[in-house]
């Protein structure tokens, strides 16, 4: 598979109270291939959304992408682009959809016009042609009666319909990569199933790569090829989906799995991860998961190594390198 995106050592910092900059994303690296879905999983504040925004250079001020970071999109150096060259990437080569479609849609314009606007910005077509393409897109994302719905205002549509419109807008420019940040979190499960189905169909049909940001391991299981688990600004484990679910290796990943209530199997008391996620200003030195980790031992005060625990499965942890296999211990 050909790599369409390569992120290397991404660091995003914010000014802290004492004048020093605090890294909310700290050394994140991953790649994305054509037609692939990579899920970026983690809890609030782990840096997954900031990572996504960095790809489009949309980190809100006073946040800053540090100079040692590298983001390559094909042969373009995303962090070196300015002005028109940057705009040519935003939306055109990397599309993005957010959790809440209502805040990203303009309430005073008809949805068909909002989609057509994107088409006109990126392609040399007539207004009429743009409208026709917009209607086709609405049909592609599963909106019934698309030519009538194109004339609707956002408030006249349900949450699920609005999210479909957002997807249509993101797809209008035929991007190589779609970044979907919690695209179904605000939606009911039956609507969520519809939207994920639409996204999957479009990915297959267009060979788009999808970066799916989510906190829901259930969605990951059904939709992602690979998973990167983030904790406190770092990727702590990365693996093919089947491998990660069969053999979660990092203690944080294991804790996440033991925290989720399930629909099948015996109902047992949940085993939550103790404590809470520390804020970026209070990340401990060494392994950041150490204070909450049931396996913490002496080396964890130092920065843990990233090492391979299975083919194509890596984790950032001292276990296994110094303490033997974590799984055989349990």
């Amino acid at each position, binding site marked *: 598979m050909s790599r369409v995106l390569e992120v290397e050592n991404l660091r995003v910092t914010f000014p802290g109270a004492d004048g020093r900059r605090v890294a909310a994303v700290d050394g994140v690296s991953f790649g994305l291939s054509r037609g692939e879905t990579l899920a970026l999983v983690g809890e609030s504040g782990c840096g997954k959304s900031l990572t996504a925004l960095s790809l489009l250079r949309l980190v809100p001020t006073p946040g800053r992408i540090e100079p040692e970071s590298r983001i390559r999109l094909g042969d373009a150096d995303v962090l070196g682009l300015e002005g028109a060259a940057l705009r040519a990437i935003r939306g055109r080569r990397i599309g993005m959809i957010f959790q809440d479609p209502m805040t990203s849609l303009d309430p005073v314009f008809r949805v068909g016009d909002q989609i057509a606007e994107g088409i006109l910005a990126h392609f040399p077509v007539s207004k009429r042609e743009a409208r026709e393409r917009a209607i086709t897109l609405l049909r592609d994302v599963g909106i019934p009666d698309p030519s009538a719905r194109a004339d609707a205002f956002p408030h006249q549509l349900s949450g699920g319909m609005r999210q479909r419109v957002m997807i249509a807008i993101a797809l209008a420019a035929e991007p190589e990569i779609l970044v979907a940040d919690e695209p179904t979190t605000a939606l009911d499960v039956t609507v969520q199933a519809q939207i994920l189905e639409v996204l999957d169909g479009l990915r297959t049909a267009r060979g788009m790569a999808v970066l799916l940001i989510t906190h829901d391991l259930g969605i*990951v*299981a059904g939709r992602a090829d690979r998973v990167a688990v983030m904790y406190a600004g770092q990727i702590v484990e990365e693996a093919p989906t089947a491998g990660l679910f069969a053999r979660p290796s990092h203690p944080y990943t294991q804790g996440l799995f033991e925290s989720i209530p399930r629909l099948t199997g015996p109902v047992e008391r949940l085993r939550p991860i103790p404590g809470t996620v520390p804020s970026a200003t209070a990340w401990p030195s060494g392994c950041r998961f150490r204070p909450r980790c049931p396996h913490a031992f002496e080396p964890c005060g130092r920065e843990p190594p990233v090492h391979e625990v299975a083919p194509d499965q890596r984790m950032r942890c001292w276990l296994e390198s110094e303490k033997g296999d974590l799984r055989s211990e349990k």
Partner: protein
Amino acid sequence: MRSDGEPLLRVTDLVKYYRAGGLFARPAPPVRAVDGVSFDIGRGETLGLVGESGCGKSTVGRTVLRLQEPTSGQAVFDGADVFALGRAELRRLRRRMQIVFQDPYGSLNPRMRIGSAVAEGIEIHGLAPRAEIPGRVAALLEEVGLDPTYARRYPHEFSGGQRQRIGIARALAVQPSFIVCDEPVSALDVSVQAQVLNLLADLQRHRGLSYLFIAHDLAVVRQVAQRVAVMYLGRIVETGATEALLREPRHPYTIALLSAVPEPDPAGQKRRVVLPGDPPSPSAPPAGCPFHPRCFHPAKSDRCRAELPLLRPVGATRVACHYAETPPAAPL
């Protein structure tokens, strides 16, 4: 307290309509948020009330507590006819029926120290002499897993999970026997969600509490509820013991809902029912079965379009479907 076989709470034929349109707007048909809902909750039992946005599940919880006035119906709580009570009696009853909300931040006064927030109910109901209140508050904070010294802090100093614990401590302060938990863990991260679910289970065991647990997440409900009721468009469409209902769902909506829940298991991916369209508006519910426009039951007929199916026992659950004897398989 009565100890016979009577349930702690019995709700019969609860209806809540909202008048639509403003003062000067054209008269519109009412929004039928809850349209004839009946259920029981036993002592120490949890009933899960499940459904998607707008199905009326939160309105049921609030109406039972009379935080909103019902349009009609009856709720009997430990022998008291809740909807017939006068002000003073209702206030006494409120001590025994509490609510925990999804967003604890929205229900805490940002300028009030959390110690005072927890103490408020004890003071209002005169449950302890003044001098004993700080000790009670400390014990409550400890019971919900918070450091008693936190009593002097303000709500903004806490994380979402801690605030939810504060909300629970506040509800417990008046020693209730029944708590409506309205999506208490939906806004929390999974690791914190698990902590709060365990806490609610522990409190139930230690204090013999009954819960009406309102949620959209079936896996969460399975974790806490012995029985479950599934709502669609203001009505209960299926109800029964949680395990039986999850193993052998009979209402097409329950089947669709279950199939839509994403399971954290790449090997066990199931056939999903992708329901067409959105739920209809509760101000203009369809005639007959409220689910018929989206139903995929192969036996769907004119009867479904004309006649409202009533809850009746079929198999292991009670189901409101004319064709519950032959539940459909999840279609592709």
